[in-house]
Every structure is written in C-alpha cells, then in structure tokens.
C-alpha cells in the first residue's frame, strides 16, 4: 500500500552537466591564429601594405618606383616600437617608424613580406608532409603488414636514411638538384626544397605507421577478416589503415610544424628559395646581420613562425583527442 513519494525534479531544475574539455581556449586561439595566417597568406596580394618584393607585385613599375623614391624608408622600426631608435636619419616626409612590423633593408614592409612568406612556408610544409605521408605511410603499411623480407628491405632503407644527420641530408639533396637544374642558384624554385623535406619526412612516418600496423595486424579482427577470406590489400586498406590513420594524422600535423622549421633552417643556410621570394626562414636569415641595429627584421617573422608552429602543435593535440578510437570494452 505504500505509495512511493519520490519527487521527480522538474526539468528546469536539473542542470544538465556539461562535458568539459581540457584546453578548449588554447585550441580556439590556435585555430583562429591559423585561420588568420592562412587567409592572409592566400590574400597576401591584397594586403594594405603592398610594398613587398616587386616579383610578387602585379604593378612592377609602381613597385620599383616606390623603392627608388623611398630610399629612406629602409630599416624603419615598427610603429609601436617607441623604445627603438631609428638607425637612419629622417629626411623630408619619410616616416620615423613604419607599419606593424617595420621595414627591411630594401624598404619593403615586413608585415606584407611575412604574409608572403607564410604563403611559401605553409605551402612547402603542407606539400612535403602530404607527399611524406603518401609515400611513408604506404611503405609503413606494406612493411608492417607483409613483414618478412619486404619489411626487412624497407626497414633497412629507412634506417640508412635515419642514420644521416637530417640537415646534412637536406643540404645534400638541395645541392644535388641545384647542380642538375641550373648553375645559377638564383632561380631555385620550391621543388627541390619540397623533395628534400619529403625525403626527410618519409622515414619517421614510415616507422610510425609500420609499428602501428604491426600492432593492428596482430589483432583478432584482422584474423577474423582473414578467416572470412579477405585478401591482403583489402585488409590493409579497410581494416588497418583506418586504425592507423589517427596516429598518422596527428604525427603529420606535428611533422608539418617541424618541416616549416626545417625549411627555416635550410633558408638560414641560404639553401632555400632564393632572394626575392620570401619564406620565413629566408627572412630570419636575411635579418641576422642587422640584429644589433634593426632587430625587427629577424624577430618579427620569428615570432610569427613560433606562433604558427605552436598553434599547429596545439591543434594537433586537439585532433589527437578528437580522433581517439573507442575500443570496445566490457
């Protein structure tokens, strides 16, 4: 006879517990930063401070006139840098400080150049990692699944590549393509640098994918698929690849950051895309002799590079979290 008198709380009273994620804000900040960088890299030509390398500029005459008529615009510190003295005299109506990032020795606006640099740096990074994943991932999957002799051959080759100091290898590859294309280092394009970086990125990716593949190849669902008559190719592509994917994508994102820095290192040695075309590395390299007098030439692109790489890494972590495979438990 006892009626249960449990009160059911009204819907409005119940506060729905919200799922809170770690590091949400940093994730969003880095996403916004990356979107900003990508958008300005794509739209670099339309930036307000279009006083950049004349090669990139559609109206070349106007550009060269600008450089010629404003010789005194060179090496102006950023407009907010009140603490930095101008090393050059202010003559006529030449501004004392100029732009968001200041100007470089040639009088080009650094902000615009940095955005143009973003275009090249990101392109080099993305292309290298894309090809790196395609080639390295395939090698890793094949080596990890087939094992035996195939694995031995691939693994040995990867070990040989890993045994070289990475930078030396890159220098060697860029140098190799230089001599074969043209004696003039002037016209070095983006291609040899991408090839060098692809070759640098293949071994680590192949190794990671190989190790992951080996783990998944042992799993029972692969045996189950085999017992149902699935062939090797099908198992690799449909059973193993989706499982290896998250690790691969996460690594690729981190790898892209590393490759952007590596391109910077190559450029620092004067081995990247040549003079008029800006990349971040080349810009940092170009400004290093002026570091005492005009620090902003090196420092400003460095900051952008640093923030971009940091954002890519943070976003990579977030993606890793997102892609985490839910294993069947209990």
């Amino acid at each position, binding site marked *: 006879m006892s009626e249960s008198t449990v009160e059911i709380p009204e819907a409005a009273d119940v506060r729905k517990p919200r799922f809170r994620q770690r590091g949400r804000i940093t994730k969003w900040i880095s996403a916004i930063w990356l979107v900003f960088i990508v958008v300005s890299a794509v739209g670099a030509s339309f930036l307000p401070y279009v006083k950049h390398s004349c090669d990139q500029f559609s109206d070349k005459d106007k550009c060269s006139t600008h450089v010629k008529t404003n010789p005194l615009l060179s090496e102006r510190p950023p407009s907010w840098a009140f603490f930095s003295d101008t090393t050059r005299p202010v003559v006529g109506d030449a501004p004392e400080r100029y732009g968001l990032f200041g100007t470089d020795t040639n009088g080009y606006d650094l902000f615009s150049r940095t955005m143009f640099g973003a275009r090249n740096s990101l392109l080099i990074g993305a292309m290298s990692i894309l090809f790196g994943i395609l080639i390295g991932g395939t090698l890793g999957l094949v080596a990890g699944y087939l094992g035996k002799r195939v694995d031995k051959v691939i693994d040995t080759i990867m070990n040989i590549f890993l045994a070289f100091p990475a930078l030396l290898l890159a220098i060697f590859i860029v140098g190799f393509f230089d001599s074969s294309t043209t004696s003039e280092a002037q016209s070095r394009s983006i291609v040899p640098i991408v090839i060098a970086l692809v070759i640098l990125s293949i071994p680590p990716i192949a190794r990671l994918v190989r190790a992951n593949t080996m783990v998944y190849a042992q799993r029972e669902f692969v045996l189950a698929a085999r017992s149902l*008559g699935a062939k090797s190719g099908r198992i690799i592509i449909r059973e193993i690849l989706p499982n290896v994917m998250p690790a691969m994508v996460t690594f690729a994102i981190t790898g892209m950051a590393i490759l952007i820095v590596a391109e910077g290192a190559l450029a620092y040695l004067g081995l990247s895309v040549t003079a008029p075309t800006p990349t971040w590395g080349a810009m940092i390299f170009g400004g290093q002799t002026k570091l005492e007098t005009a620090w902003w030439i090196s420092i400003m692109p460095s900051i952008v590079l640093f923030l971009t790489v940091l954002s890519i890494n943070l976003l990579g972590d977030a993606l890793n979290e997102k892609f985490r495979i839910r294993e069947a438990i209990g």
Partner: protein
Amino acid sequence: MSSLQTALRRESGTLLKVEDLKTHFVTAGGIVRAVDGVSFSLQHGQRLGIVGESGCGKTVLSRSVMGLLPRRNVIRTGSVYFEERELTSMSLRERQTIWGAEMAMIFQDPMTSLNPVMKIGKQLSEPLRIHLGSSRENARQIVYKLLQDVGIPEPEKRFDQYAHELSGGMRQRVMIAMALACGPSVLFADEPTTALDVTVQAQILDLIEYQCRERQMSLVLVTHDLGVVAGHTDQIIVMYAGRIVEVAPTPMLFSNMKMPYTEALFQSIPKLEEPSHTRLTTIGGRPPNLISPPDGCRFSPRCPYTTDKCIKEEPELQKVGVDHYFACHHPVGSDRWKEVQVTLGRRTGGR
C-alpha cells in the same frame, strides 16, 4: 532425382577429414609441439566438441585445420581434407576462396574481434561482397536479415553503429552473423562464450546450435567447459597436451568415460547436490611443457593411477565401442583404477 541425390550426399558423408595433423612452433626455447598427431573426421551436419584445459592445443588445432596460422616458425605436417580437397597444400589464394564461404570461424573475444573504426553493417557486408560479389544495396538487405537471424533487434539501427556501442553478447551475435554470412558448411567456434557471462552464454550457444541445424552446417565447438559441449554436440574429442586422449559420442562419453583425464575434468565441475562450501575438486599440477612433454603417457605426472608402464610406454588410441576411443593403460573401471579408488578412500578423483 539427381538433385535429390546430391542433396542427400551433402547431408551425409564426410565433410572434413584430418589425418595425423601436427603443428609445431619453433621458438627460442625449443620446438613446442602444440598439436602432435591428431586425426579425426567430421560428418555433414555433425556437431563436434573439442575439450581440454588451457594450453592443450585446442585453439591451435582449430586454427591449423583452417590454415590460419602464420607461416613463420611453424611446422605443419599431416593433411586436412575438406570435401576431398587437400587444404594443407593449397595456395593462399585458393584458401581465401574457401575461408568465409565454406569454413568460417567465431573467435573467443568479441571485444577484439570487431574492427573498432568500422561500422557493424560494413563489417558484415564485407564477406558478402568478397565471396558473393553482391552489390552494396543487396548486401545491406542480406545483412538486415542476418542480424535478425542472430536475434539482434532494430537491424537498421545497428547497421550504422560501431562495435563499442554494442554489449558483449550483441558483439558475439554480430560475430556469428559475420561467420554465417556466406552460408559456410562448417563453423569453427573457438571458445565462443568464454568472454561472456553465464546467462548470455546459454543464449549464444542455443543460437549457434539453432543456426547450425537451420543451415545444415557442421560445427566444431572448442571449449574448456564440459558443460558447454554436453548439450550442444554429437561427439566430443578430449585433448590433452596436443593429443587426442578420448573420442566418444556425447552421451557415451558422459555415461562411460574411460580416460582418467576426462574423469578428472568431469569431477572438477561443481555439482548442485553438493553442500555449499565443498572444496572444488581440481586436477593437481599444470599441463606439461609442450617443448619437452613427459615420456610415456603425457598425463602420467598428474594421474592418480600412474604405474611404471604409464611412464615408460605411451598408450595408443584403442577402441571400446562404436566411435569410442581412448588412450590409457588403466582406464576407468580397470583393476588398477579400482585399487586406487580403495586406497584413496573417496569416490574418485585427483590428488
């Protein structure tokens, strides 16, 4: 008339014949004789149970019959005939056409046997598309039917779910559906219920049995649980240390077991009529190291009836009745057995 005859032949006669199958693993410690000379045959529609402790070679036996073992460091001799076709010498490509279509396997752990990143429906349509070449839409319809057959409600919903969204019993049902997909003529169930709890266990076994009968499929049920095989098989093989020690039709085995090992296994099942807190009867010791199995009878170190003869001479399989074979010098009911029973002063059993 002729079609009727073929149908009849399909329902009777030998489907699978294993002759002196040996599977040895080459390890750093030596050669592990996981399966050491096993012969048996399976009739159309027959349900066969393989019983033994952990590490007796049951799983290796079922896998090497199917030919699923890795090639590296494995020595496999003997022959397996599937409908008069020799499986051991077949190329991988040929075997792939048999796997799934003619022989299928259900694995022990449904938690790890389903791909975590693939939808259930996709995994189920895989064998259909491989073997029958069905279209996506056609496969979808068959999968709905299959899911219904194995007792999964709302197949349309399950089709687009992932493995982690299903319970353990459901996953095992999905595994069964996967194995059944192409209508194989023999189903290997490798401890299909070990990872499940007891209530679900009964359902799954009933389901497997029902599907076997429905589809006139032979079944090889591998388990360590005599209770499981008792109600669901026609014939039982008892394995110990990679060898067959007793073969008998199910009722015969339980009423007239000969091998002390079978007896010991049987005694270690807890019984309802025993008072509570009765100590469980166990078999002392562990299965022998298969790198260097004991001379003579492999069960001799753990057997209460062991005599010098057991240690020196390995017993051969001998016939006692219709389809009933055992390998023992002092079987249940022999003089030695009676003598030990008296000295032990209790019913029967281990140490």
